[in-house]
């Protein structure tokens, strides 16, 4: 009959038909729009890495649902950081570790959560564990080494995650270098990370200088010399933090130590000419 919206076949059939049609259209729409979604995502990558399943699995149920659902990430992360601080002040290792992971998962934008979290894991937690194991007495060297290594590993894994979130951050690389150097006593790895830090846009000047110092310590003075030679012209002369005179001084030290012939020695632009004139006058 014209105009009626469904036939005499009954409501069961009608509702079942509606269900099937709606499901089919939704599936087709989803499939058709998936390329649009991918295009939008790839056209301009999100500056902030989305929360991944592997990480969120460990933190759900910590009051993070609201943040994960899209709102109040900063506020929730700050509140959770306070909670992490309370756990830290009670030297509660599992709670502190969990809270650091929760905070960085909920809001991975602020670097300070990653850096401070990694420092707590690498330095403070090592001390807590050593204290607990030693019970006031000395801890055997092998055990000390193992605990320190484990904590450094934990911190470095956190910083690896941080690099995923902040690939252009020199501070993360510097922190990784520091942990390699201070806790693992691994100057080779540290040198490598300082070098990576130095290549990033917001790198502190000292990263490049420490890289050269570590190369020297590793018995690779020629590499250190080459590094400093190419570094020096890039340093702004008027900026104290850049330490151009310090770098030049180290270049000269290395030239003497390596007995670089006079004609092959580094000639610094202008500033060095001024320094030579000064030497002659002296």
């Amino acid at each position: 009959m014209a105009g009626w919206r469904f036939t005499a076949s009954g409501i069961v059939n009608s509702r079942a038909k509606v269900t099937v049609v709606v499901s089919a259209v939704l599936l087709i729409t989803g499939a058709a729009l998936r390329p649009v979604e991918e295009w939008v995502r790839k056209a301009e990558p999100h500056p902030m890495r989305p929360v991944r399943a592997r990480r969120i699995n460990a933190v759900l149920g910590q009051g993070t649902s609201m943040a994960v659902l899209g709102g109040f990430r900063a506020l929730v992360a700050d509140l959770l950081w306070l909670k992490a601080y309370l756990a830290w002040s009670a030297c509660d290792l599992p709670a502190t570790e969990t809270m650091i992971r929760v905070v960085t998962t909920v809001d991975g934008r602020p670097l300070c959560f990653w850096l401070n979290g990694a420092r707590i894991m690498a330095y403070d937690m090592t001390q807590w564990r050593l204290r607990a194991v030693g019970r006031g007495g000395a801890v055997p060297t092998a055990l000390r080494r193992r605990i320190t290594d484990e904590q450094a590993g934990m911190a470095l894994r956190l910083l690896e995650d941080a690099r995923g979130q902040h690939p252009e951050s020199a501070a993360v690389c510097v922190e990784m270098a520091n942990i390699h150097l201070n806790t693992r006593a691994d100057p080779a790895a540290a040198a490598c990370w300082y070098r990576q830090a130095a290549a990033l846009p917001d790198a502190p000047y000292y990263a490049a200088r420490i890289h050269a110092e570590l190369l020297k310590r590793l018995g690779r003075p020629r590499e250190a010399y080459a590094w400093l030679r190419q570094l020096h012209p890039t340093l702004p002369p008027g900026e104290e933090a850049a330490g151009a005179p310090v770098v030049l001084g180290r270049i000269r030290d290395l030239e003497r130590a390596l007995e670089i012939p006079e004609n092959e020695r580094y000639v610094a632009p202008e500033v060095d000419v001024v320094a030579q004139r000064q030497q002659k006058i002296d």
Partner: protein
Amino acid sequence: MNAIEIDGITKDFTPGLFGAKVRALDGVTLRIGAGEIVGLLGPNGSGKSTLLKIVVGLLAPTAGACRIEGVPSGRVEARRGVGYLPEAPDFCPHLTGFELVLFHARLGRAPRAGMKERVEAVIARVGLVEVMHRRIGTYSQGMRQRIGLAQALVTDPRVLILDEPTAGIDPVGAAEIGAMINRFKTQGRTVLLSSHSPGQIEDLCDRVALLDHGRLVLQERVDELTRQGGRTALLVDPLPEGVLGELRGWLQARGVEFHGVEMPRSRLERVFLETVGRRSKGGDERS
């Protein structure tokens, strides 16, 4: 041409996806001529509201057909000349009566010129002009029913479908709505209304259709049904026994069989209407 034609309408409902079918209407056939007032009478659950919804095109029948002025009632076009008042509508309490009727006037494609005046006139016709700018939330049940009637009337429909138009209303309000429905007849409108009150159908309708368990069990003119075959009743002031005896003898002498004497009591509803209705003309506007 009939205003409404209902041909063998059957309606089954199936609760949930896999529930057993429930038959609400079973092969109902009814013809309603233009200008006729027909009452659907039946107990609760007899299928009156379902039939009216099918007539208006709000429900699809499982079988059968229905036409309004020749147009299948499932089509939007069939509703052009129809005014419908559902059973106990609860209009948005945040709208004013005027806003509600104006909204329905616009929906019903009433002519734009003079629309507000038209809306005011319809509201005046249902006796709510003094409260039309008050929110519906402050209206009494009777006033809500009357504003519902106004929204049905605002497009000047030729066919009115009224589902329990006096449900939940006091006798004064019901009488006023009854008077309004009687006026529709003089205006040449066709009215199909439902009620479970035989008295109301008797008072208002030309014809009655009796529904029971979804079946049309009787349709007849009201005056045919209510006519007491071959008897005459006289209503006079109280008579003393002696006068009654004389009267009996006088009738017997003329060959008229005397069946008995009754002292009819006054209908309570009439007393109520005469007492309260007189005192509160337009009654619940002040409630």
